[in-house]
């Protein structure tokens, strides 16, 4: 898997309003649940605040007064609050995680569905690893933010507000004095955040760099070893590694300073409580229990601030991930489906190329002046050397790429006026390198079209002669394929692909014949299967087999992006042109059918 580590170097802001707004739209369907969980969060925060207050009441009313029975009452109340707090907190965590999971599910499905609709230009430009990272890794980073980060910040803020209110209610003068340390706390946190942000960025950049370096050197290990530059490669690595460590150590330093500073500010507020509050207790204007409650509240006050730094990192990664996800979601397919498509049911199979011209990159045309009419049921072989434009031609016919000049017509209707999917339902494509999916043979024949019955699969397998080897496999049609179907032979995979095409039974067949040689027995099997497959269908075959070119109605010779010759095998041979040379180069050896390595 070629995950690109370079991408991960892109770092956005820690908080981006535009991104956050768009992220929050994913919570919209769960509005009610979100409201409910926020309400529960509020209640749960209240129960956390109740503890110190109950302690105060216990001390002032009962312990100092010597009321043992009253104390027991408070204890029962305490127990009730604990039980309530426990349940609320559990429900809250569960609910928020549930919402997060649902939202992430929606997002993941949206990305996946979106990617399915993009055309091949996109897949050519983006390696599999990169798209994969968006759907899997980046969504998970967001999930972490939804469940732990953002919502927990709300909780912390509620608790902070709650503490402030209770303290003010208990003794507002003392509360204000305690709050006098808050500015220091704010400054300390702001300085810390700024410093840590920089070192966090450095860490991210250095990590991305070291991963990219490592991956590159593992991939290119042969070059490193054959040039005997292991030492040089190592010192390069050590340098980046040192950078990473230094960035780490800087952030360790900031943490090492920040925590004691917060503790110290906490100690000052404690001293203020003891000094001012203590003198009020002596003067008799403050109860001892209230003083104790104040001490406990002040302690709670600092806990959320300590957590803040960690949440900050989560938020920052989440922003970077969402930026990348949204960029993918905003990528549009090159192929625009028509607004008022002409419905296309069972086609006749007449195909026409008119003055077709195509380029993948500007100024680099790969097809010119393609003019070709194919009658329903006609069988056409396309031949040519590598790079002559054969594959591009069939890619355009399948509408994997958008053509800008010229026209392709099916039964007289322009491809641009037909919905992409309607078109493809009428075409079966069998590629040179047969792609097999994980799962059993059944799945590889009908794919995921469950409406195709087992009988039809069996029938198709029988018709292409696949039943002969399938029956011998362990489990028959239920035989499990390994990754890419590597536990089947190349020839067997070919024949299964034929069965696949047959089961979908379209009017048009496009076949890119495999070049790899197979044993004679399989060769005969393939030829028989092919005959079955071609019967009654308009067929376009990029031919590599002599038997194929001899069996078609017309051969189209492509050379350097143009159609240069059209005719039957014998006609073309007589011309002594491109075809006759191609024939000698690629097909003549097959006359003797000696397969050499």
């Amino acid at each position: 898997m070629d995950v690109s580590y370079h991408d991960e170097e892109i770092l956005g802001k820690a908080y981006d309003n535009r991104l956050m707004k768009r992220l929050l739209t994913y919570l919209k369907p769960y509005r009610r649940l979100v409201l409910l969980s926020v309400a529960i969060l509020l209640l749960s925060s209240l129960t956390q605040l109740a503890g110190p207050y109950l302690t105060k009441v216990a001390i002032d009313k009962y312990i100092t007064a010597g009321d043992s029975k009253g104390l027991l009452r408070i204890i029962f109340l305490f127990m009730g609050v604990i039980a309530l707090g426990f349940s609320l907190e559990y429900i809250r965590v569960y609910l928020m995680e549930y919402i997060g999971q649902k939202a992430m599910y929606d997002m993941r499905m949206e990305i996946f569905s979106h990617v399915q609709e993009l055309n091949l230009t996109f897949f050519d430009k983006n390696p599999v690893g990169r798209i994969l990272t968006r759907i899997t890794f980046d969504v998970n980073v967001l999930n972490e933010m939804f469940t732990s980060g953002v919502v927990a910040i709300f909780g912390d803020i509620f608790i902070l507000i709650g503490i402030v209110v209770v303290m003010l209610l208990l003794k507002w003068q003392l509360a204000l004095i305690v709050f006098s340390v808050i500015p220091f706390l704010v400054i300390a946190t702001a300085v810390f955040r700024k410093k840590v942000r920089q070192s966090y960025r450095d860490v991210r950049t250095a990590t991305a760099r070291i991963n990219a370096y490592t991956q590159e050197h593992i991939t290119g290990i042969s070059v490193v070893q054959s040039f005997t530059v292991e030492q040089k490669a190592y010192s390069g690595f050590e340098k980046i590694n040192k950078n990473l460590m230094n960035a780490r150590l800087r952030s360790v330093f900031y943490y090492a300073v920040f925590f004691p500073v917060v503790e110290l500010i906490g100690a000052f507020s404690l001293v203020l409580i003891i000094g001012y509050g203590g003198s009020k207790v002596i003067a008799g204007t403050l109860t001892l229990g209230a003083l104790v409650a104040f001490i406990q509240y002040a302690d709670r006050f600092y806990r959320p601030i300590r957590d803040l730094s960690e949440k900050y990192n989560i938020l920052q990664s989440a922003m970077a991930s969402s930026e990348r996800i949204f960029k993918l979601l905003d990528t549009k397919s090159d192929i625009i489906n028509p607004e008022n498509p002409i419905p296309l049911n069972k086609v006749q199979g007449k195909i026409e190329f008119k003055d077709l011209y195509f380029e993948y990159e500007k100024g680099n045309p790969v097809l010119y002046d393609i003019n070709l009419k194919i009658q329903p049921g006609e069988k056409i072989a396309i031949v040519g050397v590598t790079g002559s434009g054969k594959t591009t031609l069939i890619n355009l016919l399948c509408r994997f790429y958008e053509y800008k000049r010229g026209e392709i017509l099916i039964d007289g209707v322009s491809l641009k006026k037909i919905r992409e999917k309607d078109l493809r339902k009428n075409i079966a494509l069998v590629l040179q390198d047969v792609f097999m999916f994980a799962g059993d043979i059944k799945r590889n024949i009908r794919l995921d079209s469950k409406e195709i019955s087992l009988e039809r699969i069996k029938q198709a397998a029988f018709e292409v002669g696949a039943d002969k080897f399938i029956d011998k496999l362990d489990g028959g049609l239920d035989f499990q394929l390994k990754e890419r179907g590597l536990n089947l032979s190349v020839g067997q995979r070919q024949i299964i692909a034929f069965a696949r095409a047959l089961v979908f039974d379209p009017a048009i067949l496009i076949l890119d014949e495999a070049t790899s040689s197979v044993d004679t027995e399989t060769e005969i099997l393939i030829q028989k299967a092919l005959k079955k497959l071609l019967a009654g269908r308009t067929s376009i075959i990029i031919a590599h087999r002599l038997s194929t070119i001899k069996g078609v109605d017309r051969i189209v010779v492509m050379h350097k992006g143009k159609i240069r010759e059209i005719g039957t095998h014998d006609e073309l041979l007589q011309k002594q042109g491109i075809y006759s040379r191609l024939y000698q180069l690629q097909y003549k050896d097959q006359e003797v059918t000696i397969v050499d390595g």
Partner: protein
Amino acid sequence: MKKEASGIIKSYILRHKRAWVQGIPAVILTTVFTMAVPWILRHVINILKGDGSTKKLILYAGAIIAATIIQGIFRYMMRQTMIVASWDIEYEIRNDLFSHLLKLDRRYFDSTPTGDIMARITNDLESVRAMVGPGIMHFIFTAFTFLTAMVLMLVINLKLTLIALLPLPLITGFTYLISKEVHNKYSKIQEHFSKITAEVQENLSGIRVIKAYVQEGNAVKRFGRLSQEYIRKNMNMIRIWGLFFPVILGFTGIAIMLVLWIGGNMVINNVITLGDLVAFTAYLMLLTWPMAALGWVIGLYQRGMASMKRIAQIFNTKPVIISPPSGGIKKEIQGKIEFKKLRFSYNGNYVLNDINLTIQPGQTVAILGHTGCGKSSLISLIPRLYQVKSEMLYIDDIDVNDYNLECLRSQIGLVAQETFLFSRSIESNIAFGDKVSEGTIKKTASIAAIDEDIGAFPSGYNTILGERGITLSGGQKQRTALARALAIKPKILILDDAFSSVDTSTEENILKNLKQVFSKCTTLIISHRISSIKNSDFIVVLKNGQIAETGTHDELITAGGLYTLLYKRQLLKQELETL
């Protein structure tokens, strides 16, 4: 010799003795001074309840500040020693891992996916670091917090201590159980996540088939089912993990409640003072989080050791291709290459058989044959990219296995079939080998006919290649790789289909240049183009791992064998080009 994972990690830990010698006392002192604050608080409350001396109150306030400052200094030291040491250890292990990887054989990399190695050098290393740093630190911190708090609480009252501490081990046990269960569930989630990854990867790789058979909708359905299952598995974990904080809060609450109830009655009955009670509750609150952390630390240890084992596997993989124990022969190579009854197999099946061939210094030899005939295997044996048995391959009449590996490889320039350039400047790509001067870079670039292309880039030789720079065309890549190989002034030059994307006339020019400048260099060329090998001193045709024909172009044409056949094809191809 295989090393145990625990042994390896121990040796790294012991290298940082100073950090632990300073760090452990710092941890202990941090806990002691943290615990001092509630103790002072206890006296404060007692004063307030008793005579109410303001003087003493100020004294105690000062004591709290002092204790916090001292505690803060030690807390700072604790992080600056132990956490720093853990990053140092990570740095060292990463260096050693990378350095070890550089020594491993091609075979290892052929059979190990890059992703797997990357996972070990990133994720696993991180778990090991978490075990060594925060793991050890929190463990010691917790142990001493518990000890100090218990002693102080015991001083206040035995009975109350026992009652108060009752729920605490439950917290540890509980966190441990939860983290174990969570870990299990988490592994299941990870497994499922791999399934999703595999599904998406398959989908993306097979996108043509999906689109051709209009399976997009079904693919979304399949993916949806997997994602649903992923939610279910996640919620399964949350059901357990969600208990974590509520239970800790609950247990703490119960402990405080018990203390308040029983302690409150003790205050009423004058067994303890109100200050004692307040100090008690304060200690309880100080203990909660460390006790929970202990359960977490146990999890860190388990994961860390599992990861260390995976890292140890890399360390325990030893290269086969190394210099002889004595260090091997170091000499300047003249360039004579001799294969004597050479056989070679990757895994049992011989891909080369009975190869007998002598190449004299300075000769240019072309190797020809169908795909899979063993050409690339043959030439990869010369720089010992794969291990060949003794007495089969000689360079300057010395067995290739007797050379010092570095000395041997540094005199062989290899341009491989698949061009691999590094994402850095063109200049440093050409100067990839050791000791390459600036003059050499320009000179070799011109021999490889890439100098004009480089000149056309805005930043010239400083142009960065790769993802963050520009992408070269196939031909440009190949010519850059050739310049890179020439820059080390090789005594033996191996060109493995190195011009496949370079046009014929450029290729001929390059070969002409080579002949002039590198006339003394033994050159082996694998090519499909007859035009570029026609002029070599002799041509070797391989078939199914054996030498089928050898001779000069004219000799082989006269012989009319496989070479003639390939030659005719080549002529046809050239004819087609011109049509």
